[in-house]
């Protein structure tokens, strides 16, 4: 059961237990991507917010947890898992354009899709949680938005009732005229 009502810190042990929680249920699933209708790029999609159920997180996180995603025209698709009113717990980025980075295993990547986890064991001097970059074996260079979501859901054990892979949405090609 979620922990009590008192404000408490998100301790590293609790966060790590949540990362490993299996399954993390998404009751409104299966998740579906929607097209950014004003853009022609097939990867320009967004993911509406879906509630995520957790039995591992403190109540104030667990009761408001959502997953959603949106497109940036220069950096691509980003996925977020966050309580509705607070900072993110997980992210996924389709690109990395700010030089190279090292993943949690010490491998160096340039522009490559990756996930961001909080590193609560290694907070910065300011108190801000560190970040760990994860490059799972299913990710690939220039990954499509649907595959990024698919790999992300599998890697972190999100269960949304899917029986097949996430698909890119069909894109509208013209607008309906008004009738006057």
């Amino acid at each position, binding site marked *: 059961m979620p922990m009590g009502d008192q404000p408490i810190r998100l301790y590293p042990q609790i966060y790590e237990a949540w990362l490993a929680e299996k399954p993390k249920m998404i009751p*409104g699933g299966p998740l579906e991507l929607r097209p950014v209708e004003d853009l022609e790029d097939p990867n320009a999609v967004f993911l509406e917010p879906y509630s995520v159920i957790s039995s591992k997180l403190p109540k104030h996180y667990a009761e408001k947890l959502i997953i959603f995603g949106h497109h940036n025209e220069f950096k691509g698709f980003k996925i977020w898992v*966050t309580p509705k009113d607070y900072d993110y717990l997980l992210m996924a980025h389709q690109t990395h354009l*700010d030089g190279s980075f090292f993943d949690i295993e010490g491998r160096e990547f340039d522009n490559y899709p990756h996930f961001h986890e909080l590193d609560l064991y290694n907070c910065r001097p300011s108190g801000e949680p560190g970040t760990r970059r994860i490059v799972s074996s299913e990710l690939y260079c220039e990954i499509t938005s649907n595959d990024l979501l698919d790999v992300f859901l599998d890697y972190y054990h999100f269960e949304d009732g899917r029986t097949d892979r996430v698909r890119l949405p069909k894109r509208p090609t013209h607008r309906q005229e008004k009738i006057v």
Partner: protein
Amino acid sequence: MLNPEQQRHLERIQKAICESVTSYDVTKGAICVTTPFLDWKGAPVEIFITSEGRITDGGDTIGQIKALRAKEEFDSWPFLLDFFSKYCIDSDGIRMILSKDSDENCYLRFIQGISRLPGFFEPKPITTLSDRFPETVKNIIIEIVEKKHPKDTPKKTVEFTTSLIKPREVILKRGYSVISDLSPIRESRMIEIISHAKATKSDRAQHVRAKVFNPVLWKLENPKVEAFSILHDIADYPPDSRQLLRHETEVIELRKETGKDKFIEILISR
């Protein structure tokens, strides 16, 4: 007059802010400029400068607002124009753009504006399958039209289904407008998607009243209008809502075996 301790802190703040503003190349010849500020998700606020010198948010702000299912509230937010003016923001409907003729102060106002904006709107998470009934209806249209009523080419079929699943606004003579959730080929038809089946009783009743208002208003002007309600199961709604739906519209229940085909027929027949 600052004392040495105050001076030291001031210089450190200035240094921290200046050093946190960096840039790197992104796609399409643009650069990304990082800022010292965090947005509502705890992520650094970034802005982009295009090769033409336009400063934008790359579509992040409206993208987030759409993704949080808050676009309707955003579009009708009464402070929107004042906010845009105050924070030096123009918008083309996709992205936020720094206003033309902006002075230096506007750069910071713009950054603050785009970081604050999504926080004004409450995300509306999908918590149950029933919240997605409108999407379910649209998927049914896509699947059945592709299988049973394809056009000459796949592209034309996509164009056809796209034209059907768009909402249609009908502007009435008195200046009001009503919305059909779908766009049937026969233009005197209106189709309303009735959802919220698992909401509270009062929410269901209110939803039905709001939906039925559209055909009622249109019929006042044009008695020949044909109105249809698409829902999963009419038993999900309170008795007075059922009565209202049946009185003002023809009800199509998708739970019934013939419901889907009848629905598509209404949508595509001339």
